[in-house]
């Protein structure tokens, strides 16, 4: 297989963006079709990649490696069973975002779509880079388009939110940069595959782990550095919120698996109690905060923090169920939160209000919308038969193996999750139709209907039949945990 399929996945959206740059910005339909075309082609390529991907192997596949900076860094990309799913998630969500701009973006459409396409390049790059420096480039590069998406097309407090997003994330990741360079000097390479083989001297691992953690914790986001997320979500335009919730947050979760746990097993084991505690705080505390919100987007943003708390909890159990649950929860949250933000965007475009109190009784005027939002609400709270259930169930199962208490407290979070989501649904959809403005509101148009239906079908289908996903990652996860335990046992043997 000589064709550089991964590089073309990474490059294609950028080429599309470059092409858009030269189209006259008055040609609105042309711009939309070009960007939609590019992103759908990219989706098809990624599906093709999934089909020819060998699920029985845990090795990195389709690896490309060429010299980039002489004697220093190689450009190296490739996928394994874990990363390929995130790539598909990215290429699946991006066309939906582009479809959704019809109603939400009024000015500077061309620039917006260029930013979205550049974002896609960077996000795919994050998930398939096999070199720490390349990873850092993609990871940090995402700041620029996202900053502009929030700042230019955002709501009233967009400047504050954009600055907060930018500075928080940058602050978190500069320490990671130091860690990356340190790894280069400690181990002599930044190639992830080789680092897996060589291992990193345990005496450095704790500090390096913390440096990586500082970056991923901000991005995940974990309590107490999650405060940028609600602001960013609230002010970002719909497509921006969707990208942020569905994919950007997953970059950190993916980073935890690939780098924190993969590279520093000894440190990861050491920090397990720490992670458990702040994950639990995130789950319980942000769920309670979510209950108190009167802004729909903020509520969903806090629920994202809680769900990501489940993810970190699952990943750091180091059990087959926990890690698989964490990965599945990320995919599931990617679809569900995207769907929820799209849904909020739908009503926001019509009424320009995100306040829950301004709604009520929508079921009378928007029946289709109400049905679909029901599916997403249930998906978010983890009803059996939706993707949310599988993720949370596996995570809790993995956690029970490790600690009964932690699992018991985390289960509380599930209940709280159900509480705030159902209450949100009740307040928005049911009840009296008091707001006069809502009388004239129109139900979903064709584009919105197709976006939301697609997501709803995804949630239900993979909720009943998760095998396509789980088959893809299970071999990789198994091998990953074996290697993890081997390294840990070696270390323990040496210290005895």
């Amino acid at each position, binding site marked *: 297989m000589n064709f550089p399929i991964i590089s073309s996945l990474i490059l294609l959206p950028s080429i599309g963006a470059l092409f858009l740059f030269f189209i006259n910005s008055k040609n609105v339909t042309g711009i939309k079709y070009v960007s939609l075309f590019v992103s759908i082609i990219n989706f098809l390529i990624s599906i093709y990649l999934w089909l020819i991907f060998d699920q029985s192997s845990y090795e990195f596949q389709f690896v490309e490696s060429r010299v*980039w900076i002489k004697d220093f860094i190689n450009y190296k990309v490739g996928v394994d069973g874990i990363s390929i799913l995130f790539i598909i998630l990215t290429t699946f969500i991006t066309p939906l975002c582009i479809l959704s701009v019809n109603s939400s973006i009024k000015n500077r459409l061309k620039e917006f779509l260029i930013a979205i396409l550049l974002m896609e390049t960077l996000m795919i790059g994050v998930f398939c880079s096999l070199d720490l420096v390349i990873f850092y*480039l993609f990871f*940090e590069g995402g700041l620029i388009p996202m900053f502009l998406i929030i*700042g230019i097309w955002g709501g009233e407090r967009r400047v504050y939110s954009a600055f907060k997003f930018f500075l928080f994330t*940058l602050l978190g990741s*500069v320490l990671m940069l*130091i860690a990356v360079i*340190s790894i280069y000097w400690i181990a002599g390479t930044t190639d992830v595959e080789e680092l897996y083989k060589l291992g990193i001297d345990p005496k450095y691992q704790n500090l390096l782990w913390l440096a990586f953690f500082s970056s991923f914790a901000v991005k995940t986001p974990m309590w107490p550095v999650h405060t940028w997320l609600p602001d960013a979500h609230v002010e970002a335009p719909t497509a921006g919120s969707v990208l942020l919730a569905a994919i950007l947050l997953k970059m950190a979760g993916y980073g935890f698996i690939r780098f924190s746990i993969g590279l520093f097993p000894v440190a990861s084991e050491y920090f397990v109690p720490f992670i458990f505690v702040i994950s639990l705080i995130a789950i319980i505390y942000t769920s309670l905060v979510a209950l108190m919100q009167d802004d729909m987007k903020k509520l969903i943003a806090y629920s994202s923090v809680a769900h990501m708390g489940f993810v970190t909890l699952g990943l750091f159990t180091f059990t087959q169920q926990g890690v698989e649950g964490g990965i599945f929860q990320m995919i599931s949250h990617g679809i569900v939160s995207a769907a929820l933000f799209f849904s909020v965007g739908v009503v926001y475009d019509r009424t320009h209000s995100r306040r829950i109190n301004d709604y009520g009784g929508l079921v009378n005027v928007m029946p289709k919308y109400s049905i679909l939002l029901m599916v997403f609400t249930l998906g978010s709270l983890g009803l059996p038969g939706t993707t949310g259930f599988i993720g949370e169930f596996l995570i809790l199962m993995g956690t029970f193996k490790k600690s009964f208490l932690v699992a018991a407290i985390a289960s509380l979070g599930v209940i709280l999750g159900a509480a705030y989501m159902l209450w949100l649904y009740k307040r928005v959809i049911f009840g009296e139709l008091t707001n006069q403005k809502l009388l004239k509101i129109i139900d979903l148009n064709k584009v919105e209907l197709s976006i939301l239906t697609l997501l709803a079908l995804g949630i239900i289908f993979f909720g009943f039949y998760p095998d396509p996903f789980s088959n893809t990652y299970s071999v990789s996860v198994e091998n990953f945990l074996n290697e993890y335990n081997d390294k840990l046992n070696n270390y323990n043997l040496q210290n005895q």
Partner: protein
Amino acid sequence: MINLFYISTEIFLSLSILILLLIGVFKKKSESFIYNFTCIILLVGLAININLNPQFPIDLFNNSYKIDYFTTLIKSVILISAFLVMLCSLNYVKQNDILKIEYPILILSSILGMLVMVSSNDLIVFYVGLELQSLALYVLAAFKRDNILSSESGLKYFILSALSSGLLLYGCSLIYGFSSSTNFDLIYQNSKSIEYGIIFGIVFILVGLAFKITAVPFHMWAPDVYDGSPTSVTVIFAILPKIAALTVFINFLYGPFLEMFDQWQAVIIFLSIGSMVFGAVAAIGQKKLKRLIAYSSISHMGFALAGLSVGTNEGIQNSIIYLMIYLIMNIAFFCCLFMLKRENQYFDKVEDLSGLSKNHPLLSLSLMIILFSLAGIPPLAGFFAKFYIFTAVIEQSMYFLAIVGLLSTVIAAFYYIRLIKVMYFDEQKEKYDLNHSIGLKMILVISSTIILIYFINPNIINNFVLDITLI
């Protein structure tokens, strides 16, 4: 027999200065001609300089002047950036009534001074070069003599610079006293044992040089002088003397004082940390772009010094890469400043940028790329500049310096993105003129493209410095 062939660049520039002076005196209204001719002279000088490219180091004039790959490279960088500066400031100079015959000639003589500084291998030669460079710059700073700010900045620069030159000379005399020579190689041989006199001398020389590159705490003059001088002179201040002075830093530290590494390392680290942090913090409140870029350049010099403080070849090479990328970014930034004009009036306040993206999408796009790059956000060139520096710093396990430096980039990012916010998020104002010279537009487009696509093949710039081995 002294081989004069190797200093043909300097000879050529000196002769050109004399001839241009004669032309200026005897031919009336020859300002434009001299300006244009100076650009050509710089290009020819560049060609001569590249043509030299010695394969092995050459000593001239009783070993007081040396030519090797490193000095030739730096000279080429100085000449090419001087050419770009002249080209992009042409319209500004014409419209602000500072196009006199002296203007280009003074620039040429200051460049001649820089070339002498870079190649000097002797304290006296070095000092002559430094003063030639500085004296020309004092006059240039005050060139808009009817403008009170410009006169003030010239005077301020002159007085403070004279003070620093005094300190520098005192340092030189101490060195001479304790090592009984002014020649770098002899100083190196005679100063193997650590004597306090020499250490004091080093510190005084470092202070004088730190003044020239505006390292904290010797930076006070920079914001006022940058702001008061005409913009076409500010761009010279921001780029040319810094390249020359930083090269002299390298020549000093890794030449005669190499044995004293443990002694001067702390000084350089102090200067570096101070500049990085102070430059980042102080720029936040600035309302004028020229003051802001003054603080920003203070902070950038801190990063370049961080590369010098590690004491390895990689550190030096990475500092030079940093300097090259810095000068590309700064030339591009000043090109944007030159484009902010309406009816022959130039604007340089932060608020003048507001809503630029609606009226001038391409200008604001390039400025955005430049600012993100100055802030060091990947994948732009500015990120790599910092990345290389910290690679060298962390190799020597100097984690404190690395952490402080990177945290200061976060602070600095704040004011860079504030400018982007003003351009992209704020309400639009009146349009600016569009009739810029082709040279200005070309420089802006090319330099911002280089910044943008540097990551595709970083080796193109990196290869220049691979052959620099001073240790």
